[in-house]
């Protein structure tokens, strides 16, 4: 699906299904430097199980035009604007990493729009090390190497992709390389600067799911605890032996968590 949001053409993967206004809608929001394809298996499942699926490419990412947005708050308002442009009045939001922060803030700012909220690999705050921020600004290959090294549980760096024949570190690296120059730095800076996570969590009115990876180094489970504590109606799923790249490392376990919640 392609819709104009703020004058910029925006792409959303739908699982090759036409939008049906009679069905509930799930919107998937990817993380820093990524695009809709990180949700391939999960979004496709729901698209074929009675939901409209809109796995967006955020502005300046993937197939979407526009400039990347510099703050989580701006991303959250953009998600709301995107849903409005797509003709969606109410949706469940599923976000990963930076996308989880955008979904969280969106649920707080636009409570009537968000029916359910699933946060994968969130943290509040979500600080990014100075070295990674600097590398993202000045040496993107080095930043890619840091992220790929940190976002997988240690064993995953030797492979074992659940999808036959795919090499996880290679795929993660190539996806980051596809981002336009400067996009990753803007995304990481937005994560680093976001200070409203706990307040947003406290004001979320809808049921929320938090999925954490027990071996997540980018957003360790302990960094999500305050956020979890602040949520009122919540469910937590902790994935053993899983890092931050959970939609790749453990796609079925992530899907099962979402099925159980959504």
């Amino acid at each position, binding site marked *: 699906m392609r819709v104009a949001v703020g004058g910029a053409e925006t792409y959303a*993967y739908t699982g*090759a299904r036409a939008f049906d206004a009679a069905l509930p809608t799930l919107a998937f929001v990817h993380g820093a430097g990524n*695009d809709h*394809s990180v949700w*391939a*298996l999960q979004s*496709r*499942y729901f698209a*074929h199980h009675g939901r409209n699926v809109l796995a967006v490419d955020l502005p300046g990412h*993937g*197939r979407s035009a526009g400039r990347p947005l510099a703050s989580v708050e701006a991303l959250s308002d953009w998600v709301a604007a995107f849903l409005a442009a797509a003709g969606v009045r109410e949706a469940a939001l599923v976000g990963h990493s930076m996308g989880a922060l955008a979904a969280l803030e969106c649920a707080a700012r636009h409570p009537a729009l968000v029916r359910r909220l699933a946060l994968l690999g969130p943290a509040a*705050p979500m*600080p*990014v*090390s*100075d*070295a*990674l921020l600097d590398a993202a600004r000045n040496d993107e290959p080095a930043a890619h*190497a*840091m992220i*790929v*090294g*940190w976002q997988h549980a240690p*064993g995953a*760096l*030797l*492979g*074992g*992709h*659940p*999808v*036959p*024949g*795919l*090499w996880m*570190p*290679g*795929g993660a690296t*190539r*996806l980051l*390389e*596809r981002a336009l120059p400067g996009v990753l730095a803007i995304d990481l800076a937005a994560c680093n600067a976001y200070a409203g996570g706990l307040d947003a969590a406290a004001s979320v009115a809808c049921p929320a799911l938090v999925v954490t990876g027990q071996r997540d*180094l*980018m957003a360790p489970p302990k*960094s999500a605890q305050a956020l979890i504590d602040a949520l009122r109606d919540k469910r937590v799923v902790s994935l053993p032996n899983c890092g931050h790249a959970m939609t790749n490392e453990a*796609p*079925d376990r992530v*899907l099962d968590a979402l099925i159980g919640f959504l």
Partner: protein
Amino acid sequence: MKARLPLPTPMSTPKSHRFDTLSLHAGARPDPATGARATPIHQTASFVFPDCDHAAALFNMERAGHVYSRISNPTCAVLEERVAALEGGVGAIATASGQAALHLAICTLMGAGGHIVASRALYGGSHNLLDYTLPRFGIATTFVDPRDLDAWRAAIRPETRLLFGETLGNPGLDVLDVPRVAALAHDHGLPLLVDSTFTTPWLLRPFEHGADLVFHSATKFLSGHGVVIGGVLVDSGSFDWDGAKARGKFPTLTEPYHGFHDMVFAEESTTAAFLLRARREGIRDFGACMAPATAWQILQGIETLPVRMARHVENARKVVAFLAKHAMVAGVAYPELPSHRDHALAARLLPRGCGAVFSFDLRGTRAQGRRFIESLRLFSHLANVGDAKSLVIHPASTTHFRMSAEDLARAGITEGTIRLSIGLEDADDLIEDLSRGLHAAGKA
């Protein structure tokens, strides 16, 4: 104070595993069910579904896993990951042979009406597929001198969908200028496919030089022992099939595929669209898959690839040095020799060496060539390369016999051309064997 991510001091900066480690470990881990350390051979045609919903989800690519061993198999998947890791790609597909890998690559990218520009310095079987067989299905190929960039450029047509060459051409070891040919391909919105069989990723990682797709006859150095037939097709994940210059050229990847619920592969996967289509159509429908026992054999070979390749190259250099000085030898085609046309390019692209398969021209008659081959005791006369044991063959009458005299000459093959594949024996024994053969040829 905010909690920080793990401090990126030099000690904690993540490092990807190195080549030799990946050769042993990539894609594999101890079997969680049994604790088996070696990769098990999953000798099964099918995989049990936990329930009907799970089965449907597997068929529709909503869940990850195996359905039927023609499409994927856990043992083959370990091999696929390992080769992808060694090449620096996003994934791979194991095939029944190297020829099957080449066919899979071509048929994933084009159908009738498609056109390929290929180096003319190719393995005879690849030349046969492109020159005789694929035209029957509406796919044409223009062959060019791999060194002539203008010829590559001039041969590209509106319907061209692929540029193709061998990293080291068979049998003259023409070194493909991968960076320049890749740049030319990309200027025209086209991918570059290379046959990397002779180099293996230990000698050259073509993706680092701009190639988009790589395939191997894994029968050769990857398995290394001449005991199986197999191929591997690897995707770099870098080519943008829907990019501005490529737009409209690859409808198999960018338009809905009615054979799989109108899936648009380039939208389904940003980096692995080619592999998705190749597996969900090519392997599924053409069926040239690899057997799990074959994958296991190749995995055993790859575990020792770095140490074997080092020894192959070391032995080859000694044999080349011997032949280059022999009176019965008119010339040796090995790019490390200053006399080779690609000497400078090889020094740049292949600093670890130029492999262990090369040819030389014997002075004398066809009868003397026959006497030479039949006098050898250690070198086996057969149609293969990349074995741990040394091999010899006469290309004009075997691997390239279907080619016309003109095409043979263009490929740098004469009646006196002898191809050697240098194995892992003691190099002095190999030199003694060749010396015996040359002596006998001189007397014939």
